[in-house]
């Protein structure tokens, strides 16, 4: 049965402008997009096309200049910063190109962090984190600090952290940007596997076409507009 997935996020005529001195720069230009729940989506495009800005707008880290972003029908524009932070805390998982692990925390502590922020007891949070790290093949790296891990391992820890609190959506910004092709494949494999088991919406910003091809939907951006949608 080819049932249409419900829409998790809907972007309606979204524009984002930045002011740089006297100049006003339109980074996202009148863009409309639907992100179905539980699906995987790639946002591609050249540097400066507005991919990362779009991701930050979805995460509520930045606000739109014009237009609306709806989360299951509710406009994010009406939300205060605290509510947006709560949305990120509970429903969003982030994966970054440069991993952004906390250097002074072990792999286990980094993964259990979102759970502990949400009030989970340390031992329970760490149990869950251990399971996730084990699933990603890092059970022998639990007490290692980020500086003691390879790039691929660090990104797998970041993936585990992103999924730890069962978010509704994972936002990955160039997750393989800092990795060699072989490690990149491994990491994407891990990411898609774990996403499949959890049925989470995954939005990946990438300019790597091979990574984009792994997603169910691909949106290409040029100068802040959708140039291709498949």
């Amino acid at each position, binding site marked *: 049965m080819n049932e249409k997935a419900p829409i998790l996020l809907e972007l309606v005529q979204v524009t984002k402008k930045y002011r740089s001195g006297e100049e006003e720069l339109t980074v996202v230009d009148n863009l409309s997009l639907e992100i179905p729940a539980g699906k995987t989506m790639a946002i591609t495009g050249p540097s400066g096309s507005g991919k990362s800005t779009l991701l930050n707008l979805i995460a509520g880290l930045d606000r739109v200049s014009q237009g609306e972003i709806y989360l299951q029908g509710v406009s994010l524009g009406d939300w205060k910063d605290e509510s947006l*932070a*709560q*949305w990120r805390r509970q429903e969003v998982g982030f994966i970054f190109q440069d991993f952004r692990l*906390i250097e002074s925390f072990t792999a286990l502590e980094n993964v259990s962090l979102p759970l502990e922020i949400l009030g*989970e007891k340390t031992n329970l949070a760490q149990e869950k984190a251990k399971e996730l790290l084990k699933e990603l093949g890092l059970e022998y790296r639990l007490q290692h600090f980020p500086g003691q891990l390879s790039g691929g391992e660090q990104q797998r820890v970041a993936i585990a952290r992103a999924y730890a609190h069962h978010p509704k959506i994972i936002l990955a910004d160039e997750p393989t940007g800092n990795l060699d092709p072989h490690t990149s494949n491994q990491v994407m494999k891990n990411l898609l596997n774990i996403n499949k088991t959890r049925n989470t919406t995954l939005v990946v910003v990438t300019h790597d076409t091979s990574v984009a091809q792994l997603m169910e939907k691909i949106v290409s951006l040029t100068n802040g507009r959708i140039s291709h949608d498949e």
Partner: protein
Amino acid sequence: MTNKTSKPELNRLASRIFWRHRGRMLFFALCIAVGVGCLFTIENFLDSINELIAGKARETLAADVTLASWRPFTPEIESSLAQLKKEGYQASRTLAFSSMAKPLKARFPFLVSVRAIEESYPLYGNMEVSPSDYRERFFAGNTCLIGQQLAIQYKIDLGDKIFLGGSTLEVIGFILKEPGQSFRGTFSPRIMVPFSEVKKTGLIQYASRISRACLLACPPHLQDSAKAARELKERLRRELSDPYLRMASYTESQPTVREVLQRVSTFFVLVSLVTLILGIIGMATSVTTFFHEQLETIGTLRCLGLTSSHISQLYLRLCFFIGLLGGTLGILIGVIFSYTAQIVMEQVFSIPVPVSIQIKNVLAGLFFAILITLGANYAAVSSLAKVVPLDILRGRLKTFVISRQALGITITIGLGLLFLYTLQSSNSPKIAFFFTISLVGIVLFSLLLILLSLRVLEIFLRRLVSSSFWGFSLRHGWRQLIRQKARSITFFLALTLGITLLCSLELIEHSLVREISVDEEDSRPDIFLVDVQKSQISSVKKIMSDYAKSSKDFSPLIRARLTHINGESVKRKDIKELSMEERRRQRFLTREYNLTYKDTLNSSETITEGKFWEEGESRPLISLEKRFAERLGLSLNDTMSFDIQGRKLEGEIVAIRSINWVSMSPNFFVIFPRKVLEPAPQMLITSLAVHDSLKIATFREELFDKHPNIIVINAGQILESVRQMLTYLIGGLKGVGWICAAIGLLILIGTLSMGKVQRRRKILLLRSLGSSSQSTRAIDFVEFASIGLITAVIVGLLSYSWSFFLAQQVGVVSHDTLEKILPYLLVSVFLPVVVGLFSNRRLYREVR
């Protein structure tokens, strides 16, 4: 499914950050711990002494209430005392005065402090005398008890005879302990005689200075003794109108001890505060550096759903933990200091003060440490919280700027708290204000000098083009210093404040000790004669001429009481309501005055305002000493009224004099013209320079034989005791000063270790560009040596300014300033080099 609460759990996160950076946290905490420890020690020690005094107050006073006066009790007082006796109150009279005494087997007489007591003395507490069965024989007459110290010093045995005035008394016991003695510092040993014996000595002469006291004990049926004592004192205050009468109840006994302790502790509080402030500056700058490094973490945390308010709460929690650790360490340090102070008090000053760690001081120490850590870092935390996460994520932000407004508010509140704390510790708005302003001034002045020095280095740097080994090293070393301005300023401030404090203490000690030292070459008098009667002048002059290298004229001394200022009556206020300055003013107002008369000034006096009268002036004019006039708030044309043995005398101030007190001439606060006071009842004082201990002893002997009533005071001996006390006091202060300098060093080490990653990168870069390992060390050497040299220059300038200030304000001339502070200046030059190179030694080894 995860339990998704709306509020993030920040405590665990803060404790994890704290634990993961525990080395640094320990350093931050240590910065303030030492200062907190010093303050904790002082507070705790003062409380222990106060507790000790309060616990023994009744025994110390030997009564519930005492009445005391320098004059005979009036019939009104006598009648009141008689009434009290009828009501069941116990009374015991004492007399106290100074006199010369001479043991039969000793060659020379000496000054003693005589106390005459009745059989009922003491009403509370114990007199410990050896042998203990002395009472019956003692009160039978012709006997005395002497202090144990006196017995040892002059080898006096039981049964020996002592001449006191016209009496020959047999020593029948040694005083081991008498009420209140443990806190009283006397320059003369004690002799106790029966009350009935005093008249026979003939020492009570006209205008002699004798303290008469009546000790009172409430009837035993009054159960609440404290209440009864207070009520008795109030009753006597209502009933007795004699303005000369002083009253004290045991519930408020030893106010002088408390005040002296408070004054001495104020010095320690101020020096400790400098240590603490230095620690706070070091801690705040290091924590800010740490926060800069936390920006990446903050970016991540914001993505994980923390708001700016959460970030603020998170890092304030971290500061709370630092404060808690600092407070705990401070208390531990304080406990160690307290026990050390206990040993010093017992072994050096023979005052046993049991250390009891007061829980209120522990809590106050913790609270104080937490408060200052939160306060000092508030500006940085609030600025950190405002950082836009996107700027971090996009790599646009490597540092954050502390909001000037937040910094301004923090500094203002900090200074306000500093003022309030100093006020509470010293009970003196003047000291609190002066200290706060001076500290701000010194920090600003130091900052100005530091910035100026860095600017000068910058100018040199631009002109330095040499490509030689040292040219290269100088260029890079100075560049390191100039480019990291914030870090360099922290170094400089920490070292400058610590070492300037030490230099200042050294200068004060040196100047004061030198001022009060009397040596043989000195022509200043070292002997004072007191209680000379007019009829004895010619005979005394004759004896003096055989011994004195130089002598001063006889000055008349007339005892009086100040009754009115500008027509307004002088009234005694409750001291509890008064600040330190007001108490001092009240003491000056209500003290017994020693007036004199003369028509010509001596060589130590200079008129600063108004005009001194001509010879033969008969109008009641007054000349006041300058500082005395300032303390009482008096100026030219004001009037003062005195009561001289019942006669009123009002005079107008026409001249203000400054006096060089260290000249040791007999000088007076208040002078009248000869014709005005000449007829008044008087005794005379004079001074002479002998400067030879054997001659002094023979002089005393001859004078004692002919005029036993005259008191000979060896000022040289007293000044030696003062010098010793001063050395102890400043030695203690210097101890705290060294701790302050050590904090400066700790900040230097801590800041260096925090910048190690950056330094390693730089060394690696230089080495990969072909620089030798000697060259990288030389660059660091230049940097640290420049820190040391600039610090030494600033310390030198500040110390010279300080000694100039002392000379202007206090009249203490500093001698050999450079010679005295040179060791400290050398320390400030070499310390940064040694510490800097030593703390980087691993880096040099790793990057070969």
